[in-house]
């Protein structure tokens, strides 16, 4: 926040950014809560594991040639019949669960991040247009947003997914699955961004500095993105974090329903779907670990988002 409010040239301002960060309210609030620190630690750990999945996972689950059906359905290492070659056991195709998990985590996170970025770009742009210009543009955009708000996000995502897949037909190549998923989640999450940005933009629009900028002939796009936008970034950040947790769950739901990523390139949701078939047959590890990681990931990101919302809310300080 400090970067957006004009500050007098005080000595603190010349201190390193690290020191300024360490002295800020946010850091203070962060260090006061063990839950938040724990969530941040877990989120960071999972993010790192996802980033470096190819280096930390014991096997390459995308290399189909390395799978051996004879190694299928091995239990985790600490159980009878397990081996440390496959620490969390194997699935019915002989795929190492740990490696599949790490790669699945990577996919889940990247789909969710990409779709939140898409939702954010779309929501911010439409929200700024709506708030800054008002009039019919505002009416149209906000009515669309209202209509979309009446549907649960998962329904919108399923709808978009179905329509895009129908357009692509059965002939699309494997890579399309990923982008279809990003598109369907992104399109179902933009409304929150648009509404928030619109509200702030309406407030900022009538302020003197915007009027001044307009007087000296600055183009509306420039005013919107360089003057108005920085002032609404705080709430956008909060929504983005909470949306990320929701996007992770939505991705998993879509993949669980079989309209997400294919089993040959599984996300966490796909792994849960595949493992679901083994729920009643004793091979619990196929479904348990992906489910567990999914729950931990969504929970910790959500916690972070909640905390960020409180920390950035001046009324709660």
């Amino acid at each position, binding site marked *: 926040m400090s970067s957006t409010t004009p500050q007098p040239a005080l000595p603190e301002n010349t201190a390193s950014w690290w020191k300024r960060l360490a002295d800020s309210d946010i850091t203070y609030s962060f260090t006061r809560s063990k839950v938040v620190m724990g969530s941040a630690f877990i989120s960071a750990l999972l993010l790192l594991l996802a980033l470096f999945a190819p280096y930390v996972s014991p096997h390459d689950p995308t290399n189909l040639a390395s799978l051996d*059906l004879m190694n299928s359905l091995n239990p985790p290492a600490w159980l009878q019949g397990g081996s440390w070659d496959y620490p969390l056991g194997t699935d019915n*195709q002989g795929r190492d669960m740990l490696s599949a998990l790490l790669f699945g985590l990577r996919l889940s996170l990247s789909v969710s991040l990409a779709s939140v970025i898409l939702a954010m770009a779309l929501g911010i742009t439409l929200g700024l247009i709506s708030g800054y210009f008002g009039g019919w543009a505002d009416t149209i955009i906000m009515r669309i947003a209202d209509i979309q708000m009446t549907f649960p996000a998962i329904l919108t995502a399923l709808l978009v997914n179905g329509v895009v897949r129908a357009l692509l037909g059965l002939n699309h190549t494997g890579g399309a699955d990923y982008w279809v998923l990003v598109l369907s989640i992104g399109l179902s999450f933009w409304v929150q961004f648009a509404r928030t940005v619109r509200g702030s933009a309406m407030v900022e629009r009538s302020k003197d500095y915007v009027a001044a900028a307009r007087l000296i002939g600055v183009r509306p796009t420039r005013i919107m993105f360089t003057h108005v936008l920085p002032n609404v970034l705080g709430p956008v950040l909060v929504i983005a974090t909470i949306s990320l947790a929701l996007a992770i769950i939505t991705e998993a739901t879509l993949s669980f329903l079989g309209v997400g990523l294919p*089993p*040959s390139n599984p996300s966490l949701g796909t792994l849960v779907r595949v493992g*679901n078939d*083994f729920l*009643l047959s004793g091979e619990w590890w196929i479904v348990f670990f992906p489910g567990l990681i999914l729950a931990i990931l969504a929970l910790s990101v959500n916690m972070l988002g909640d905390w960020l919302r409180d920390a950035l809310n001046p009324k709660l300080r």
Partner: protein
Amino acid sequence: MTSLNFSPAIRSALRLSPFKLSSAMVLAASLLATPILAHNAAAKTFRYAFQGDLNALDPYTLDETFTIGALGNVFEGLTKRDKDLKIIPGLATSWEVMEPTRWRFHLRKGVKFHDGEDFTADDVVFSCERAMTGGSQFKGNLPAVKQVVKVDDYTVDMILSSPNPILTSQLDTLFMMSKKWAQANNAMETQPASAKELNPGALKADGTGPFYIVSHEPGVKTVFKPNTGWWGKRTDNFDEVDFTTIKSDATRVAALLSGQVDMIEPVPVQAMQKVNDNPGTKVLSAPELRTVFLTMDQKRDELLFSDVKGKNPFKDVRVRKAFYQAIDIKAIDSKLMRGLGQPAALLVTPVVFPEAKDFKRFPYDVAAAKKLMADAGYPNGFSLTMHCPNDRYVNDEAICQAVTTMLARINVKVTLKAIPKAQYFALAGASGGYGTSFGMLGWTPASNDPLEILTQLLGCRDDKGNGGLFNYGGYCNPKVDALAKQAMVETDVTKRNALLVEAFKLTTADVGALPLHQQYLAWGISKKIQIVQRPTDPILFYEAHKD
């Protein structure tokens, strides 16, 4: 229940649709609830669930075992099969061969369709013509039939273009429809399997069988009620049969274990133990006549789904053989199928064709497969898309995934598209223009005769499906066709078998298709249910009973 179970004739007299009738029955039942319960302790509802959908009720849309089985409760053919699969009279009480190309069928008198109309020769002529044209998948059941002629109201002649000793074994699943009903319901033409939407006529059915359909929501629920005016003998005590689709393996098993349904098919192999250990349920298992195999498009000059352009790698027998030898069927059958699969060397089971035992699979040998690929000019492999049903055969998607893995070892990059059977058969079959490059099919010879394999699955065809209608790969060897033609008219069993063996030797050497295994039937039933499990896999309610 007798007081409430209107016979179809009464129903038509009352001009009530099944829907109105059922609501009337509910009303009546609520008024008479107590006496009926006391009176009718034996009447039961039978609930069963399958992994895939029952889609169109048009009996010629989909030549698929499950659909035929379900519709076999509603419709009947001129012939039927008994529990040992022997041909017995159905809607025809007797038949005679007037001359080798002219068969006379004497129809059963007094049979009524569910809507109350009489079953007559007109319906037979209409049904056969309907099955031989348009989007019908049953053209192969009447391969040599040139014309069906009405002699009188209860006699028809089938005129053949060449003798066909197994004609009656092909008629048991060619169900008879009512001409008047079809006219009234705009169902004169067969609903094609590839159509995006079902015609209203394909959502209803009017047969002569032991059950009629009360309501049908494709993919959700279908309700059957007994046809009390049925001419045959029934052993069931059901007053209603509910069919539902439960796609998820775990949910289906849970539904059986909890008693929500009385029967499921299939029991996923990983849950067999669980179903048998549960006190109220058990698995009925037996080798099925079905052979599951992979199809390779050998007809197009360029595959639809591959990075090889300008030529079709599957036209080279070395590539087909390399695929064959790269697949470790023993691992699939021991691990994925948990022993409930029997590796197959032919597309027909030894149960139907004992000579199949003498055929051996090409050995699983990755090095040999790699060499074949290199010889064929693909040392670095190629990539292609495989289409697979994911709700049809036991572990279909898992098997395709395993095949994908195994082919990766000979550098073939396979992208797997596993889709529901309705979509899959529409894409891969004649009505979809045989639109797969590499796919899966399972076949039960409904005629219980190996010749059907050579004509339906391996006979030459054109792009529209004239010829081997289910020859998804478009394999064609004129010598095989010639042998099949000879076998069709050969009446001496030993000579006929020799012809068939010779033909199968050719198809094996050509690797016309890639046989995988015979799967086991796995029905999960409540111990309260007695039901006949035929190796052809139909679920026939009238042979069942609930305690």
